[in-house]
């Protein structure tokens, strides 16, 4: 199993930390992982993306141009990465702020209203955990318990009381992710 993922959105949406959490969780599950951020003169509100790779085998290139899954959280990211999804791959997009639907017909497409859900939860900071939940529902490559173990590893002790909230956010994401288009792989 190798899952090559691009996560892209605005800076401040938690794009880079989503990739890190997926990778930490992968480590907890005994997988090989690689995380590569776009780094540059970027700031809150600018664009950010990272490549996360989870695999049973040693990972060759940390930098890719085609992906099994693209998680896009704003319109510029969808414009940039929709075409980079491999045929039969997966595109997950956040509904809020999108001005158009994806156009591809040869990939699986899911949408998630993660921002609205985070508002309902009274905590927009868990936005990215809701998205992770949606992703793991569609691509169950990592078990939830390993995500929690990963979170424990990433977060300093003083934030450990927030782990149940994050877990709830993951469950919410699993509930609300919507399949919009399915193709055979």
């Amino acid at each position, binding site marked *: 199993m190798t899952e090559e993922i691009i996560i892209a959105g605005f800076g401040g949406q938690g794009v880079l930390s989503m990739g890190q959490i997926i990778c930490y969780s992968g480590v907890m599950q005994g997988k090989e992982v690689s995380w*590569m951020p776009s*780094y*540059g003169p970027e700031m809150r509100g600018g664009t950010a993306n990272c490549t996360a790779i989870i695999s049973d085998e040693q990972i*060759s*290139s940390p930098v890719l*141009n085609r992906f099994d899954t693209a998680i896009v959280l704003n319109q510029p990211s969808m414009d940039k990465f929709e075409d980079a999804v491999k045929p039969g791959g997966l595109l997950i997009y956040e509904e809020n702020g999108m001005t158009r639907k994806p156009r591809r017909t040869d990939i699986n497409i899911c949408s998630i209203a993660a921002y609205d859900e985070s508002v309902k939860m009274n905590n927009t900071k868990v936005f990215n955990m809701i998205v992770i939940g949606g992703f793991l529902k569609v691509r169950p490559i990592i078990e939830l318990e390993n995500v929690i173990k990963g979170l424990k590893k990433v977060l300093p002790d003083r934030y450990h009381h927030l782990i149940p909230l994050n877990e709830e956010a993951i469950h919410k994401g699993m509930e609300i992710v919507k399949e919009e288009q399915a193709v055979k792989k």
Partner: protein
Amino acid sequence: MKELRLMKGNEALAEAAIRAGADAYFGYPITPQSEVIEYLMRENPADRTGMQVLQAESEVAAINMVYGAAGCGKRAMTSSSSPGISLKMEGISYIAGAELPCVVVNVVRAGPGLGTIQPSQSDYFQAVKGGGHGDYKLIVLAPATVQESVDYVKLAFELAFKYRNPVMILSDGIIGQMMEKVELFEQMPRSTEEYEWATLGKKPGKDSVIVTSLQLQSEEQEKVNLRLQAKYREVEKNEVRFETYACEDAEYLFAAFGSCARITRKALDMARAKGIKVGIIRPQTLYPFPVDEINRLAGQVKGILTVEMNAGQMVEDVRLAVNGKTPVEFYGRFGGMIPTPDEILKALEQKIIGG
């Protein structure tokens, strides 16, 4: 006990410096390398091992602080990225001339000039062919993984002290910024050895130790040069390191180093899936260069494609090693652009197989 962590290349390298028993680090921030000094400042190794960390007022100051520490026989390291390394070159030449050990890390970004902060391998010539003035060589290690970033810090200090020569770790923006699993080696003690070449104060009954790269008599300077050349021949004999993959039945060969070798390895997997028998050689030491192995493989394959994130630098050394035995072609992206596995495969098919 060995310890498994998920770390950024730059941070892992900084932690490795502490664990390798370094006495001092002097640096100055520059993207994409700043995490090295940030990590060391945050970690404050003075509490752990007594290692001193200082942000110098400039890159020039940092390399001269390294010169001073090395002159006292201490394990000193500095790091920067391309424009900063250019500033350090005068000091590096002096350290090579004075025959002192130190470790210099270059997390390469694209140039020339201030260039861009994105990854590149365009400092190959600077690292391998000189960079500073005079007939000197750096031992150059090229990590391709976060793990190698860690392991090569330890190796770099060993080689620096074995040969009393500066060692450069030629990383790049990809290796520096990416996170991977890494196994950290155990904390090593800081060395307490008092080397006889080190300036530790004049001892009664012993001559003064003078550290210098200045010889005003040409006869003396030539002796220094001859001694350096003899040392470099020893390095070439003992320290060549490389990795080959899928070369046994290879009809074609990739040559690539550092992060670019990993992207090329992906292209190799794609080529093999199409039935193209291609292998790869990845020099881990850029100086000394794996001349003999490349020459041997050149006798086996129908062509070699060198892939680099520059306009073609290592390819010159590959051609010298191949010495006309088989065609050598080049594919590269530069300016901070990263070649894709698809592009590399296409270049192999067009320039080597089709050509």
